[in-house]
Each structure stands twice: as C-alpha cells, then as structure tokens.
C-alpha cells in the first residue's frame, strides 16, 4: 500500500472503532427520547439535564459517593498490588530457595486460572470473616499478591537488570532488603507504574467481584450504580444513565492519555521478553 493511502486507510478503520465512545460523549447531552429514537452522533437539542439529574440521589446516595467508593477501592488495590507483587517478584527473580521452581510454576499457572473458580470458596471465607459488604474482599487479594500476571511482569523486568549491580551492592555489605529497596525497585519503576495503572483501571471496571460483595447503597461503586439503571425501561432514565456512564470512563481515558506509551508497551512486551 502506498504511503499516501496508508493514513486514510488506518483512519477509516479507526472511525467505526471509536464511534461508540464518541457517541456516548454526545448522547449524554441528548434527551431520553432522542437517545432511543436515533443513533445520530450530534444531539438535535443539547441539554444538560442528564448531568444535573446526577445531583439527585440514586438509591438514596449521591453520585459523588459512587466516585469516592470506586476511587478508594481502585487506588487501594493499585497500591496493594505494587507492594505485594514486587516483594514476591524479587524473591522469584533474585533469591535462592528450595521451592523456587515449583512455586514460580504455580504462580504462572494461576495466571490462567479463571477468577470464577475461586469465587465461591473465597466468598464463603470472607463471609466467615464478616467481610461481605465491605471493601476488604476486593483489596485483600491484592495485598496478598494473588495477581500473578503482575508478578510475572515484574520478574521479566528484574531479569533485565544486570546481576553485577546486585552483586556489587552485596559486596558493599547490603542485604537483600536494602538491595531490593535501593537497587531493584528504582530500576523497575516502569513496571511498578504499569502495574499500578493497570490495576487501577481493571479494578475501576471490574463488575463481577463488586457485584457479589457489595450491596448497601452507601458502599456501591460506579459499576454497581450503573447497574441500577439496567432494570429501568423508562426512557427518561436513559439520559442520566449515559451521563454517568460517560463520567465513569473519564478517569480511564485520562490515565490512558497520560501513560499510553507505558501501558501499551508494558502490555505488549509482557509476553515477549525473557
């Protein structure tokens, strides 16, 4: 394909791909009846009522509460994942211990383990611990390094650090804890940021886990608040529903805009390095 045709061809493909997102942005300014009646991009009549309606309470709670809850959960998960996965990854990548090979193989295998396999017994466990309808069942697994994908990502990164650096530090009298803190961690910063942002976004989007654990109105997160709209057949609710949908993806788009290169490359190379 000639260079002159390349750009138009790529852009022609991008338009339908990005259409649903752009449509959502514009549709959030349409009236409910217009949303149902036409798939046109631009509103016939621009209205702000949908966003104003979000100021009213939904299930007795204001929309701001859902944002705060989602932020608490997603940010806690991101921090917990970075801390726990980097500790585990350092042990797997750099330290010697008898069970290293089988335990690392186990970790890799759990990347493929569907979350639904452990959902029921975990639920039963969290119920016994009295944690159902709190944020703990969402955060605790991250604090305990169950997200094997990120352990793998960090191990891959750590393998690219020259061992001479560790060994030099060791000769200078540093123990493993200092080497981890002052040699390894600063050098894998891209992997840490990638882990934090992916965890934030995936937790922000996660519907299944939040659906089974959270039920009180004041604990609902954004995906669960949006779910409240699914039942409605009232066209007038479509406007606020899409307004909240649009607002809910704004943080993801902002993170993506800021860190797109890091995210895409972190994701792309996870399967290729080594």
């Amino acid at each position, binding site marked *: 394909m000639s260079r002159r045709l390349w750009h138009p061809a790529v852009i022609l493909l991008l338009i339908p791909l990005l259409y649903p997102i752009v449509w959502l942005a514009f549709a959030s300014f349409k009236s409910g009846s217009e949303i149902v009646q036409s798939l046109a991009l631009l509103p016939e009549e621009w209205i702000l009522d949908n966003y104003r309606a979000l100021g009213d309470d939904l299930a007795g709670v204001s929309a701001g509460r859902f944002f705060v809850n989602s932020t608490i959960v997603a940010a806690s998960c991101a921090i917990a994942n970075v801390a726990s996965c980097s500790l585990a990854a350092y042990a797997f990548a750099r330290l010697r211990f008898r069970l290293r090979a089988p335990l690392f193989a186990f970790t890799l295998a759990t990347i493929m383990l569907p979350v639904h396999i452990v959902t029921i017994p975990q639920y039963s466990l969290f119920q016994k611990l009295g944690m159902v309808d709190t944020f703990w069942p969402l955060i605790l697994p991250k604090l305990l390094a169950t997200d094997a994908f990120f352990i793998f990502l960090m191990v891959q990164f750590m393998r690219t650090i020259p061992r001479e650096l560790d060994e030099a530090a060791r000769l200078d009298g540093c*123990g493993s804890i200092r080497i981890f803190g002052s040699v390894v961690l600063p050098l894998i910063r891209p992997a840490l940021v990638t882990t934090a942002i992916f965890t934030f976004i995936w937790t922000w989007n996660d519907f299944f886990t939040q659906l089974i654990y959270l039920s009180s109105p004041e604990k609902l997160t954004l995906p669960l608040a949006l779910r409240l709209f699914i039942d409605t057949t009232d066209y007038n609710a479509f406007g606020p529903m899409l307004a909240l949908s649009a607002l809910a993806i704004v943080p993801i788009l902002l993170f993506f805009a800021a860190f797109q290169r890091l995210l895409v490359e972190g994701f792309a190379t996870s399967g290729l390095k080594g």
Partner: protein
Amino acid sequence: MTTVLERPRAKAETRSKSLRRYGERPSIAYLFLSPWVVGAVFLTAGPMVWLLYLSFTDYDLFTAPQWVGVDNYVRMLTVDPHFWNAVWATTKFVVISVPAQLIAALGVAMLINRRSRAQGFYRSAFYAPSLLGASVSVALVWRVIFHDWIGHPDRALLALVLLAVWQFGAPMVIFLAGLQQIPQEYYDAAAVDGAGPWRTFLKITVPMLSPVIFFNLVLDTIRAFQVFTGAYVVSNGTGGPSDSTLFYTLYLYEKGFVEFKMGYASAMSWFLLLIIALITALLFRTAKGWVFYSGDET
C-alpha cells in the same frame, strides 16, 4: 502458557548459583514471599480444595454444607437444560469471537506496522477499546446502540461477539511487538526471490510469528470463557432471549449468588476448570505441529 516464550531459562539458573558465594539465607526469601504464600494458600490453593468439597454438597452459605455425593454433577449433566444452554452459548461465543478477534488483531497489526511517526498514536488509538470494553459503561452503550438486536437470540449473541472483537487492540499490540522482532532481511530475501505478499505472509510472517499467535490464542480463549459484564448488562442478568446469551459465568453467578445454590455452582466451577484445562492442553498439543521457535534445532 507464558513459559513457552522464555526458553533461555537454563542460563539464568546457572548464573544464580553464583549467589551462593555470598551466603544468602533462604529464610530472607520466604520473608519477601510471605504475603504471596498467605495468598496462595488461603485464596488460591485452599479455596480450590474447598471448592472440590463443596461441589459434593448442598450448600446455601448460611447453613453447614450437606454431603450429597455426585448429585450436583448428575443434575448438571443430565437434568438441567439451562446448563447445556449455557455450555452451548459459551461455546458459540468462544469459537466465533476468538478467531475473529485474532484475525482483526493480526490484520491491523500488519497494517500499522510501518515506519512512521504516527504509528505510536495509531497503536494507542486501536488499543483504547481494550481498556474500556470490560466496563459497564460500554456495555450500556452496546445495550442502547444494539437495542433492536438484543431481543433476537442470534443477533443478541452477535452483539456480544462484536463487543469482544471491538477489543482486538490487546492482542494487536502483542502481534505488533512480535512483527517488529522479525528481521527485515527475511523479507528482503523473499522480495529478491520474487515472492508475492501472500506467499511472504504464509512462509515468513506466520511461522516467525507463531509463538505470539499461540500466546494470543491461549490467552484469548481463556479470557473468552470468562466474559461476564457484557452478557449481564445486555441481557439484564437473565442470559436471554431464550438463553442465547446465558454465558457459563452468568449462569454460575445466577446459581451461586442469586439462588444461593453454592454446591451446584461449585460443581459448575470445577467443570469449567476441567474444560479450560482440557482445551489448554489440547492447544499445547497442537502447538508442536505449528509453533516454531527460532531457538529450536529443528
């Protein structure tokens, strides 16, 4: 699956032996690993054993599990029509959406794989739907845009397939990274030999890219079995019309967390694990025939 892509493991092993000289205490390793160990025991391995036990019981979360033997499995496999509807809907979804998504991903990866300042931007733009696709927001958009489809069994499933294919950016960026590792000389040599684009694709791109194709195939298949949000939102949690979007995970959720038939749902979980393990094993089996590693002697 990921291990297949990292052959030079042996080298790392010999290097790590040199650490012994410094008298590293193994206990320090377990200190670093302690959160992981607690998680692996109490949130992964333990629950899987507990799940196996629960699958032989009647359990509603609130009273103690009652042993019922293979009852759940028998009912699941021979009595419950919805179970087979769920298996069928999920099978159709996986078989259609995975190849469609991978073909779109490879096609677009090849299209944007050329030296240009715009490549990075295009790559990000195609990737963006992968970050948004799992959200309830996008599922609601799908519900409105495909409003006329979701009342019709085949089209409702097709709308969900489209939602999956729409997220082809994730495998695409992995393909793109793989394409960029193929040495240009191979293509130059093919051009000198007068090979056309189709022949070049079949004889150079596909074999050189086969480990990445395999990686994406395994990952995407497993991912497709777990799709939940789209089906839940589009069908209003029912899996309808007439069970056409009753994905396995959706039925599992319904049984476990709506009807509180946890024993039955546990049996379903184990069956899902079995199916996924079986399919993964099968894929690895076939891989010997078509996945080519440049490090291999053959």
